[in-house]
């Protein structure tokens, strides 16, 4: 990663390694802007990030089930 003026420039490898933290909004503003800047100018990474997000959206389809019983009853017996 290097500086061009006040803006950090990132290559594809660096940007891809940060997809996860970028998705979770865990990056500081400067690094976040650098990833955004890279995605704006790189179609391949933009496509890869789109697929990365799609993969995670699948997980949202998993339903949470109710617990099948009250486990407190066991403790009251112990």
């Amino acid at each position, binding site marked *: 990663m290097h500086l061009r003026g006040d803006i950090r420039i990132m290559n594809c490898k660096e940007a891809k*390694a940060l*997809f*996860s*933290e970028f998705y*979770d909004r*865990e990056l500081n503003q400067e690094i976040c802007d650098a990833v955004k800047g890279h995605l704006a100018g790189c179609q391949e990474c933009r496509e890869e990030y*789109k*697929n*990365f*997000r*799609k*993969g*995670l*959206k*699948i*997980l*949202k*389809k*998993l*339903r*949470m*089930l*109710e*617990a*099948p*019983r*009250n*486990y*407190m009853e*066991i*403790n*009251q017996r*112990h």
Partner: protein
Amino acid sequence: MKLLPKKEHQYIGTKMNFIELNLMENARRGDSHALNELFSQHQKYIFNLMLQLTGDAARADDLTEETFIMAFRKLHSFRCQVSFRIWLSRIAINLFRLECRRKPKHYSLCLEKIMVPSHEDNPERVVIKSELQWCILHNLQQHLPNKYREVLVLRDLHHLSYKEISEILEWNVSKTKTRLHRARQMFRQQFINNKCKAFADDYLCICEGILEL
């Protein structure tokens, strides 16, 4: 409900909120209502966590039961330095790891060997919906090593913060970030390799969201 005891100094640096601390103190004194309230609000979470890690409802039920028995026995030694949920999660995950070491891994039939019906052949969306549920659990359980499955489930299914995950898995935050990134890539890759994507693709709309079934 009784008030917080005078020996408050033992809770310095605690990550528990005031209500939870009160419940904890009363539960330790043998108040069964406090104990019930303290534990019952985490039952659904622990059961689902175990289900997503094992992919098996019976094993999840057993591990949840063992978690609550152990938590009950260790209640007096819990020092309240992490939240109650984090502490329960640690117990549950340690029990899960122990069980994995004791029992050989069971391999179920992989989707690569199953014909995925096309949308036209299978208009019953309800079938596909349950297949997709199975697909996700199958991929988590069969195609992700434990160290990646644990972090993925805690973050993407239970939405815990990086710090909370680090506390549960007893890793530093940097390791959590690295493992989570790898886990997400691996899950997506396996999902495509195992043709599960065929189920999901029908429900991906052009804005990349998944349509409600």
